């Protein structure tokens, strides 16, 4: 018996019902896409391919590099620099959680409580974007300076004793410690948390809060059962927009930290621009990319929100 494969029925799509446009018209979207997509392919995708090839090359700057499929570089990079990797993820993770804790009340305030002050507060959140972030990060050097007001207050309140015991600060110092770096990271990426949170909170119908109240929900219950779940898209995109750039950042670690707080971005930068060890730098940056993409994918799956873009 021969099994004849039946041709699957042609799918009836919406497009078929429309009258068929001319060939010239059908090409319109491709012409619109061509320049931009070409740009991304040549200057974003192709470089990643080049980097992948660089990471398995051996050689030196004088003799030139050659592809030798030397995967050992990856292993060496990991064993040499795993402290910086772990530190980067730890700092970025802590900064993300702090951003969420600090940003949520402000986003909530703008969305529901600000009233006619709403635009003023929004401007104050957005405007720092336009002042060079390096200048603002340098300002933290002044704020956290040894013997400055902030350090004095923390000292008087014995906060620094606790944080020093935890290893976040060194005795009587905040600058050049993990606390300073996390403080800088949190500060720099807060707007990236607040804006998506605000957008998703603003979409919530205020009547839902009233309804919850009518059903005898306390404000805390209303928040837990209604507001927070509905703001999940904002929470997800906010944490991603904070965590991803923070994990690769080296500005805060360099300006506010010390050699003990170096993050993986610093290592990549040094290897690439000073040591000129391209294979190691490429391998490190590939590992960082892979780790971040895997974490992001798992996180998006877990949180169940697909509509990010």
């Amino acid at each position, binding site marked *: 018996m021969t099994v004849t494969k039946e041709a699957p029925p042609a799918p009836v799509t919406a497009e078929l019902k429309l009258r068929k446009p001319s060939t010239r018209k059908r090409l319109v979207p491709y012409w619109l896409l061509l320049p931009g997509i070409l740009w991304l392919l040549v200057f974003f995708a192709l470089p990643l391919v080049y980097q992948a090839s660089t990471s398995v090359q051996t050689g030196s700057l004088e003799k030139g590099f050659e592809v030798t499929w030397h995967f050992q570089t990856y292993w060496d990079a990991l064993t040499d620099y795993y402290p910086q990797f772990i530190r980067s993820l730890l700092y970025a993770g802590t900064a993300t959680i702090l951003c969420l804790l600090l940003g949520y009340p402000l986003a909530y305030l703008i969305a529901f409580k600000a009233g006619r002050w709403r635009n003023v507060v929004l401007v104050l959140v957005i405007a720092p974007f336009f002042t060079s972030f390096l200048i603002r990060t340098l300002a933290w050097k002044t704020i956290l300076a040894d013997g400055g007001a902030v350090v004095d207050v923390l000292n008087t309140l014995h906060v620094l004793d606790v944080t020093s015991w935890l290893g976040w600060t060194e005795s009587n110092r905040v600058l050049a410690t993990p606390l300073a770096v996390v403080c800088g990271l949190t500060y720099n990426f*807060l707007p990236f948390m607040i804006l998506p949170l605000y957008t998703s909170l603003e979409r919530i119908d205020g009547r839902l809060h009233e309804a919850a109240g009518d059903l005898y929900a306390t404000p805390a219950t209303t928040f837990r059962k209604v507001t927070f779940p509905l703001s999940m898209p904002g929470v997800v995109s906010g944490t991603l927009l904070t965590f991803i750039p923070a994990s690769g950042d080296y500005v805060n670690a360099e300006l506010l930290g010390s050699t003990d707080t170096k993050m993986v971005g610093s290592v990549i930068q040094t290897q690439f621009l000073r040591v000129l060890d391209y294979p190691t730098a490429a391998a490190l940056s590939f590992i960082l990319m892979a780790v971040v993409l895997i974490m992001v994918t798992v996180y998006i799956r877990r949180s169940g929100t697909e509509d990010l873009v």
Partner: protein
Amino acid sequence: MPVLRWIRRNLIVIAGLLTLAYMILPNVVVMVFSFNKPNGRFNYSWQRFSLDAWKDPCGVADMCGSLSLSLQIAVWATVGATVLGTMISFALVRYRFRARGAINSLIFLPMAMPEVVMAASLLTLFLNMGAQLGFWTILIAHIMFCLSFVVTAVKARVMSMDPRLEEAARDLYAGPVQTFLRVTLPIAAPGIAAGALLAFALSFDDFIITNFNAGSTVTFPMFVWGSAQRGTPVQINVIGTAMFIIAVMVVVVGQLIANRRKNSAR
């Protein structure tokens, strides 16, 4: 205790305002220290009041040159990214075609990647091509990473647009060009403006990607970075303060225009 009850009732407002203070604090410090007269090369501790830096904002070697370079790059990057990004957004929203999913992820990926990865990989490309690092490589890089943000901003606006408005224009015998210029573009304008503003801010402020691909060219963020090691001139705080004030003004004026439009549309 009534005080405690008041605090409990307004907990969210208090926490929000504290966060706002945390966000504004560095800007205040930048502003205050622009009136400082430091003793040494570093402007990190308050010495005494002086208007010197404000009287002579370009008195530091190379600073205003780097500033004008950054402005030029930001303008061209904004133009490039906005044109390319707007075209992509229209194609994605208005047409159904193959490879839409792939193109969507190609646009999403640059935003989902640490900057240092993009910066390093672009540098390997330029090194392999033997490209001369400088103005053009910076511009290419900036258009590349601003593009995704423009697409996201414009797409949001175009998606909420009613296509029937364009059909109506066509029914009224408007040609395709006329329809686009008189109907489509004005409606999409706020989204395009938002995308352009975002691109400008991102390009002007970018440090990591520029640092990798600039060669010996110095943009303003790179000048600030270098000054952190060599000694920060007070003029940097003047520029920072001026940028903050200009930004606030731009946003406020934009809001006023938007409000007036809304009122006149009613």
